[in-house]
């Protein structure tokens, strides 16, 4: 059984959303696309539409599954083909509660395993993600800073998940709203 890795929140802290400016020249096209489409938009579906429109994305038909509406685009940036996905919907949070979740994903049809460190830094973590299995980071955001989670399951928070692969890599940013009473 693959050992479960544990990282502690050593450097998590106080990393503003805007810490990675658009003129960062050393970031990969993959991270740059994530920053523009998902992070700067705060995963807001309307803002994602505007961002991907500006990049000339080609949209697929929207999909509605249960209470979630999903939209997909195909873009090419820096010679890299990527898919941008956005969704918004209400999800169960226990037997009689629900919560709103918005999601923004960038899927690169390239080997991006060497370009994952920027994502961990953006989330506020010093350690690099595992390049052989999925990694997720949960954090809270207060006035632009990334903070450790409260541990209260019902609180609003953010999740960044990375699914690395040799031929395809997906990064996923979820904004999980507080549980509705």
């Amino acid at each position, binding site marked *: 059984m693959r050992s479960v890795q544990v990282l502690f929140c050593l450097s998590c802290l106080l990393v503003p959303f805007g810490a990675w400016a658009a003129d960062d020249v050393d970031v990969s096209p993959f991270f740059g696309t994530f920053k523009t489409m998902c992070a700067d938009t705060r995963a807001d579906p309307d803002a994602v539409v505007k961002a991907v429109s500006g990049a000339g994305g080609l949209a697929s038909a*929207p999909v*509605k599954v249960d209470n979630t509406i999903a939209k997909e685009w195909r873009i090419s940036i820096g010679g890299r083909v990527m*898919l941008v996905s956005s969704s918004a919907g209400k*999800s169960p949070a226990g037997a009689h509660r629900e919560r709103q979740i918005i999601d923004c*994903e960038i899927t690169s049809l390239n080997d991006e395993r060497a370009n994952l460190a920027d994502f961990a830094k953006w989330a506020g973590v010093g350690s690099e993600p595992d390049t052989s299995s999925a990694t997720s980071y*949960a954090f809270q955001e207060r006035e632009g800073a990334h903070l450790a989670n409260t541990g209260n399951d019902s609180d609003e928070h953010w999740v960044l998940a990375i*699914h690395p692969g040799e031929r395809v890599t997906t990064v996923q940013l979820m904004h999980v709203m507080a549980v509705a009473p």
Partner: protein
Amino acid sequence: MSSDDDDNPFHGLYQFFAGSGNDGTPSIPVSDPPAKNSSAPTSYTPAQVKGLVDEANGFATDLYNRYVVTPGGHTAAEKAKDLARAQQLQGQLSQMLQGALPQSTATGQNYENNIHGASDYLLHAAVNSGIGWHVQIPEAAGGAAFGFDNNELPDSGLVPPQKIGPLY
């Protein structure tokens, strides 16, 4: 680290889970969900949550690899089988979210986060793969619902692209 943490496959502020689902971790048989109790929400163990999350994440990645990275050559039967599998997993994830999830004493939200993440990842993978997930225009946008079956989908790995327009 507490004893609770030892049972928590997602413990730590940063949760790690095997995307391939092939790490030998016991998983929930897809055809055999936990029995329901009529008076209480179904309870899930950490291993059950991790098993289903791994299954869903692994299947989503597999869809991207088979349909998007390597488009073409897919039969209608293969698409139908994958669609059924994606919908089955999606239903199980939704059912799990309505149940009683194990608590992580270290960081709380771990289990629910991973289920939500797997659900969205799988949904987008299924749509991007063009295996025929029901497609409809949101009513709020003024469109009528429409759908197409597997045989009508192009075998390009993507649903037909459209330039972004006033629909959105």
